[in-house]
């Protein structure tokens, strides 16, 4: 049996962790764009877009991410495409992230006081103008801490893509474990790398929220 | 021996010394009003007597029980003095009756039927027997404060500390609470109250303490304190009241 040094293990894991980072970024940015679309549908004044976005959010928040990954993987295959794991992983994570971000942002938009809508309407602004100039700028400010906070969930969510065969940090952990028979050490390192990725995000989300609260109290 | 003996009590919050050596003895049955500007340390003094704030030096004794920061001593002390808060602090998930029963059962291990009988008696005493099953959010501020008084009385304390008990009330509700306090005083309960109700202090109290800058600045019977204030600070304080 080949001996593996700690450095061998860590190096292999770190190489794979790059894909965790890439997939997290893609999911977060893609999910943000789709989520923004969903948000506008969710707060639109016409009934059907609202219903659609509501059902979408319910569906993606009410089912396991793992099932969504399987459905993306096998569902895309139904179209006769030979689906690489990274594609199914990216699609599923983007759709999943979008649902959560849309819901977080809706809460922020709805927390803007009714008086702001009324005041801007009384100044003759149209709905889009109200959104663009009055509501969104305020909502965006309070949306930042929970959005950063959710990015932690995205990073952790990417670990499930290992199950459909995408080689990122978790999959690499399993592969290295199978080669070294050192599950305690390897998964310990894997956890540590995730922690290093997530902890700064968690902390900055908390920091931003505290800052926001202080700013609000001073008003 | 006095019921409450406060000797050279000092208390700081960080670098800010709020109590700068307080001496005060309270005899059984006395009704004492503590007056003074906000920030003069009067609420802090009350909270120290109940162990809600730890003192930096000096000593506080209530009927022989010494104030010490450990739970056993605190409990012994708190069984002797009850406290009424400005914001009532009723337990929102319990009815008026349950509010009065809870600490009897938890702290004194009183069996439920006896605790309930006591609760009915105490609510009766504050004129709220019919509100036994009402939740705090179904009561007016004045009624809530009267329940809080009944809750403290049910523990059969030797003295009551009242921290601005009418300050959070709408003006029309102040009198019903003061009436209850006045009755307690008439029954011989020892009361130590921080208050802004000068007329009440004048009519009901045996002594008035004027606190200024963390010290007892002037002390005496109400006729003296209100009628012939000795220091310019007290004169100014009383003048500002009108």
């Amino acid at each position: 049996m080949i001996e593996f040094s700690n450095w061998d293990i860590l190096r292999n894991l770190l190489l794979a962790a790059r894909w965790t980072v890439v997939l997290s970024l893609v999911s977060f940015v893609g999910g943000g764009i789709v989520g923004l679309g969903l948000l506008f549908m969710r707060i639109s004044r016409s009934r059907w877009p609202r219903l659609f976005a509501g059902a979408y959010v319910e569906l993606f928040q009410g089912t396991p991410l793992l099932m969504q990954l399987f459905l993306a993987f096998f569902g895309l295959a139904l179209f006769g495409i030979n689906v690489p794991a990274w594609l199914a992983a990216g699609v599923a994570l983007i759709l999943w992230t979008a649902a959560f971000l849309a819901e977080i942002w809706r809460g922020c938009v709805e927390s803007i006081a009714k008086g702001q809508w009324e005041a801007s309407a009384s100044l003759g602004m149209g709905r889009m103008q109200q959104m663009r100039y009055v509501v969104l700028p305020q909502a965006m400010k309070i949306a930042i801490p929970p959005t950063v906070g959710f990015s932690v969930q995205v990073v952790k969510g990417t670990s499930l893509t290992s199950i459909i065969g995408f080689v990122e940090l978790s999959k690499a952990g399993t592969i290295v474990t199978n080669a070294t028979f050192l599950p305690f050490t390897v998964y310990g390192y894997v956890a540590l790398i995730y922690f290093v990725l997530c902890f700064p995000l968690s902390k900055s989300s908390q920091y931003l929220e505290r800052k926001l609260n202080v700013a609000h109290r001073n008003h | 021996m006095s019921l409450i003996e406060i000797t050279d009590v000092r208390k700081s919050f960080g670098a800010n010394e709020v109590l700068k050596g307080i001496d005060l003895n309270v005899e059984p049955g006395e009704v004492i009003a503590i007056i003074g500007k906000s920030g003069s340390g009067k609420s802090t003094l009350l909270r120290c007597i109940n162990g809600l704030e730890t003192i930096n030096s000096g000593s506080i004794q209530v009927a022989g029980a010494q104030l010490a920061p450990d739970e056993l001593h605190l409990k012994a002390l708190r069984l002797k003095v009850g406290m009424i808060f400005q914001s009532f602090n009723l337990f929102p998930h319990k009815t008026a009756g349950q509010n009065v029963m809870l600490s009897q059962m938890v702290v004194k291990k009183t069996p439920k039927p006896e605790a309930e009988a006591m609760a009915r008696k105490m609510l009766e005493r504050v004129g709220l027997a019919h509100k036994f099953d009402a939740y705090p959010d179904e009561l007016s501020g004045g009624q809530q404060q009267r329940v809080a008084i009944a809750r403290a009385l049910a523990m059969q304390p030797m003295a009551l500390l009242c921290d601005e008990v009418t300050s959070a009330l709408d003006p029309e509700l102040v009198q019903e609470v003061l009436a209850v306090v006045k009755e307690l005083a008439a029954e011989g309960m020892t009361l130590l109250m921080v208050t802004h109700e000068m007329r009440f202090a004048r009519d009901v109290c045996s002594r008035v303490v004027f606190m200024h800058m963390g010290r007892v600045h002037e002390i005496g019977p109400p006729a003296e304190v209100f009628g012939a204030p000795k220091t310019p600070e007290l004169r100014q304080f009383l003048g500002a009241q009108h």
Partner: protein
Amino acid sequence: MGYVFDYSWLADYWGVLLKGVLVTAELTLVGATLGVSLGVACAWARSLGPRWLKPIVATYVELIRNTPFLIQLFFIFFGLPSLGVQMSEIQAALLAMVINLGAYSCEIVRAGIQATGQGQFEAGWSLGMTRFETFRYVVLIPALQKIWPALSSQIVIVMLGSAVVSQIAAEDLSFAANFIQSRTFRAFESYIVATLIYLALAILLRQLLRGVGFVLFPRRSGR
């Protein structure tokens, strides 16, 4: 597309699905009960407990919240045996869920305690209750009531997250779906059915938790 959906396998395999549902339900109910209890204990420790305990609990909470559930599960199931701790798949799954929910509910309950306010503590203390008695009889129920919706969402998240316990061969609902697709080669249909069952379970669980809320907190919050 030429694909024809086929659900005829349901007739033969509904028993497998049912068994999976029961395991998922059992894991969720037991896991949620123990996990929330752990969370309450940790919330007590972090806000009112002895000073030496606070950093320990804080470290536990941060470690769990900043690593994936899957890795926690693998660490427990594959890693701990090398320290001599042996567990069945179900035990490992349950332990991972309890530890995970414990950390999240700690922070949620702690927020509830903070929102309950100092006045309630002081009222309890001034009546002679100890710190623990005040927490138990005065603060806990209103605190839980304030955060019950957030806690309920977290429990649903843990139930959905439990789908990955199939990866250590705990025979839950997702395990059943894997099993069925490996036998029938109807992968998409298997996962669609399992997904819909999860959705139904999530909706059911939310209602159940609402009901528990009505029992635990017969009073609507006053403010």
